[in-house]
């Protein structure tokens, strides 16, 4: 591929007669301008005109979308919500960590007011969750675990060993045999390794 051209927001790329606008560009007065700082990408999609778009990296970043299943790590908990870092969207790892919030009401589907965050998540747990909202500028992604298949997948006990799930709300440490409360995910059998 020929070396890609760099551009900054406001650069005039071409006229609307030459290309169809893609992502990262906008149209004004019959010309296509860049709205991102990055590389110009022209693709022939099979239609009459090539599609022109501006991307930050050569591969397109996968962003969590509403309804996507994400894998995240709990960073802090609070009586009202838990803060998480989103690590994977589906099965693709993300380059940057996005921040997410799981509110107390979104942890379970039943008995929402009796949920205690301390008995559902702890800092350091790996959780499967679903995105319900992208949030605005200041707030993070809003996530939910209110389904049987969502919840804590990997958790470590206070003694440091990885715990084994017993039922949907308890996990047990194999070393000290103490039980701890978590909102456990029911992982589908085909995803479990032997």
């Amino acid at each position, binding site marked *: 591929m020929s070396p890609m051209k760099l551009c900054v927001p406001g650069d005039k790329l071409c006229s609307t007669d030459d290309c169809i606008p893609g992502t990262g560009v906008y149209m004004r007065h019959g010309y296509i301008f860049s709205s991102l700082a990055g590389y110009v990408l022209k693709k022939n999609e099979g239609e009459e005109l090539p599609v022109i778009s501006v991307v930050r990296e050569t591969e397109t970043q996968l962003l969590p979308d509403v309804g996507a299943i994400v894998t995240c790590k709990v960073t802090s908990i609070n009586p009202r919500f838990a803060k998480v870092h989103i690590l994977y969207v589906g099965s693709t790892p993300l380059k940057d960590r996005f921040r997410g919030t799981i509110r107390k009401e979104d942890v379970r589907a039943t008995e929402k007011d009796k949920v205690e965050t*301390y008995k559902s998540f702890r800092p350091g747990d790996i959780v499967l969750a679903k995105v319900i909202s992208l949030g605005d500028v200041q707030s993070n992604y809003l996530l939910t675990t209110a389904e049987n298949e969502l919840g804590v997948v990997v958790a470590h006990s206070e003694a440091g060993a990885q715990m084994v799930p017993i039922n949907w709300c308890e996990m047990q440490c194999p*070393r*000290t045999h103490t039980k701890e409360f978590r909102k456990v995910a029911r992982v589908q059998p085909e995803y479990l390794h032997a």
Partner: protein
Amino acid sequence: MESCLKVKVGAVLLPGDVFTFIKTDTISLTESLKEEKIICGPGLQRNGDDVVVCKSGVLRHKNPNLYWVDSQQRRYVPVKGESVIGIVTTKSGDVFKVDVGGSEQASLSYLAFEGATKRNRPNVQVGDLVYAQFLIANKDMEPELVCIDSSGRANGLGVFGAGGLLFKGSLGLVRRLLMPQNEILKDLEKLYPCELVLGMNGRLWVRAATVQKTLIVANLLESSENMSAQQRRTLFKRVADGNL
């Protein structure tokens, strides 16, 4: 199995001491194998098949099968359900910040007092002493206190403290004073009438009829931690006779 723990009751243990339970090698043909269950209390932890000591102290035993380590400690770690004496440090928004002697300040909501509503705010100032109970206390979240019990009544909790003396003892001293039939308090009752508030965070508050009597009671309690029963009785007798 249990015999190796029973032998050590009353002995001083250090963190890292391990009690292994040898299973198969020496099975006696004459005694029958019994299934024994041991309950590990504070200071003991199960590690696979062994019991490991986590805190230094004296091993204690209570029938039928409860073992724990009695340790001396002055630093308090918040535990849910314990009643403590706290000092109000700031008022911010709907919440008071209270110092309980732990690693973090605990929060106490305006509405967690008896008869408190959004219009009827409780009369609590910065620097007041409160006797409160932990609602949330774990290593991952900020501790939270309340001054009411689950039915909404104060039950002895709340603001107190005009005219008394607050001093600090060890956690073991407070636990001994809180035992149902302990002798220190019985001897103290005979001495002077006084008001006493004991917080599980090692803080004690005393008020007696005069300032001098308050100071005497405070000193007696502090020193009775390290004295044997006999020494304590002679000291109390000296005070009662007025010879201090």
